[in-house]
């Protein structure tokens, strides 16, 4: 009778069946990228498209990012969905500051990325004026495919990045 497969024997050949080697960094990043907990900071039109992305047709849970959290303390991926006006700026900053490391930001849509076609007296010309952004998704609003693509790009970035993120990596003077 053969031994139970999980029994660790002295022989190296057996070890290959029960263990694999990797770098700690890769292992942690693999875990992080496949379980992003997004915080949808939805202000405008893009939030409706995000609803469609979460909805039954596009189903973002296929990419491990369906656990939507509205508390910044429980989320690690801030999705800024829609126009951020000057009045909203401090709130966005506060929410970003309340999130724990590691944290990432996706600017969804042109308004969040650059102000879009609102070159106006009350619209912030891109959220990167106040918080660092990892991925910019173009579109007004982006299609759900676009939002998913942005998510995948972020996953790529996480895979390539180190484990330790320097908190003040993007110090932005305001």
């Amino acid at each position: 009778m053969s031994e139970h497969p999980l029994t660790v024997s002295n022989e190296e050949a057996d070890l290959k069946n029960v263990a694999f080697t990797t770098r700690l960094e890769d292992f942690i990043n693999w875990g992080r990228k496949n379980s992003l907990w997004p915080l949808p900071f939805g202000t405008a039109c893009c939030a409706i498209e995000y609803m469609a992305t979460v909805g039954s047709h596009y189903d973002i849970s296929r990419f491990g990012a369906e656990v939507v959290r509205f508390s910044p303390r429980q989320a690690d991926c801030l999705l800024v969905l829609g126009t951020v006006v000057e009045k909203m700026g401090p709130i966005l900053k506060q929410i970003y500051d309340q999130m724990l490391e590691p944290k990432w930001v996706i600017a969804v849509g042109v308004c969040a990325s650059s102000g879009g076609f609102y070159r106006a007296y009350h619209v912030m010309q891109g959220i990167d004026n106040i918080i660092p952004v990892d991925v910019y998704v173009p579109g007004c609003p982006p299609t759900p495919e676009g939002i998913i693509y942005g998510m995948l790009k972020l996953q790529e970035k996480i895979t390539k990045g180190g484990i330790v993120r320097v908190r003040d990596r993007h110090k932005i003077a305001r």
Partner: protein
Amino acid sequence: MHTTLTPPESSKYMRLNLGPSHPATHGTLRVFVELEGEIIRNMKLEIGYLHRCFEKMAETHTWNQVIPFTDRLNYVSAMMNNVGYVMSVEKLLGIEVTKRCQRIRVILCELSRIIDHLVCIGANAVDLGALTCFWYFFRERENVYDLFEALCGARLTTSVTRVGGMYQDLPEGWLEWCRKVVNHMPRTLDEVDTLLTNNRIWIDRTKGVGPISKENALEYGFTGPCLRATGIAYDIRKAMPYYDYDKFSWNVVTQTEGDTYSRYLVRMGEMRESLKIIQQALDDIPGGSVNVDDWAICLPPKDQVYNSIEGLMAHFKLIMHGIRPPVGEVYSCTEAANGELGFYVGSDNQGRPYRVRVRPPCFAIYQAFPEMCIGQTVSDAVATLGSLNIVAGELDR
């Protein structure tokens, strides 16, 4: 030993801030409440967190360039804003769009009304913990999105109308496709009807919650489903019919209680009425052009632009100088998903509007929110807010 705790007057109530980034406030609304236990004793609202300067932007763009900005007012049902805006410009120009264009606009408006109500009811149910309806409704919404995408390439922000007509005629096979989508819809409505309408929990959470009286609703300038839920059968499609709405057979849905449950029932009913209108409109689509035959307003056909000097000149003039409506100010209103959506446009005979004023239905409705909530619990306020369907893009413009 027992001592009674009597707090000083100033700290009798607990102050609580909801939003703007709060799941129940849908993004950009901020509510300050003073609570006694769980009962709301006082409420203050703060808006403007999505003030995107629509009215100022409109003054710096040409008449047709304003259309994309109107998409982003009530972005849940963008086509109705497109239609509302161009209607006011067409009124100022004194033109009537072709019958075919009118019929297409009716179909698109009613589809938009349906998807708007789908989001409203779906999100309202999510706020109260019923996630299933939301998935069901979004499946339907995706079907309509596909239709819109086939028509104009965009799902949400459609910019599908032009002053004097449409961006283009319907693509081939669109009408049959539309009929299929429309025929499928009653099934989903029935499903959600069975899930919610007689559901004990849904009724307990919504009946008698956030009520408003007829008189108060009028004082606050309510229109649309929220007004009809109080028992006033006012619908602009009936009161001031445009685009032959009076020729279709359909009913104005009303309820009497003015509470969250009534608003839910009105919206459910309206979706079925809209389906009726679409079906009748689909049966009888006149042929011909979608654009008015006036090259000072609508772009000439492409073969004319390439092959005739008149066409080329008209095209050039329209692109470079734009439309020039006569001097004057008009107000024109349509029945949008939330109520009366009015556009007041002023022209001084230039290529750009002198003034575009939007009368947003949400603005009037949201103002009454404290009055509807005082004396009820915070969770009731969440239920009420969902049923009012406040869309920040339209509220703050």
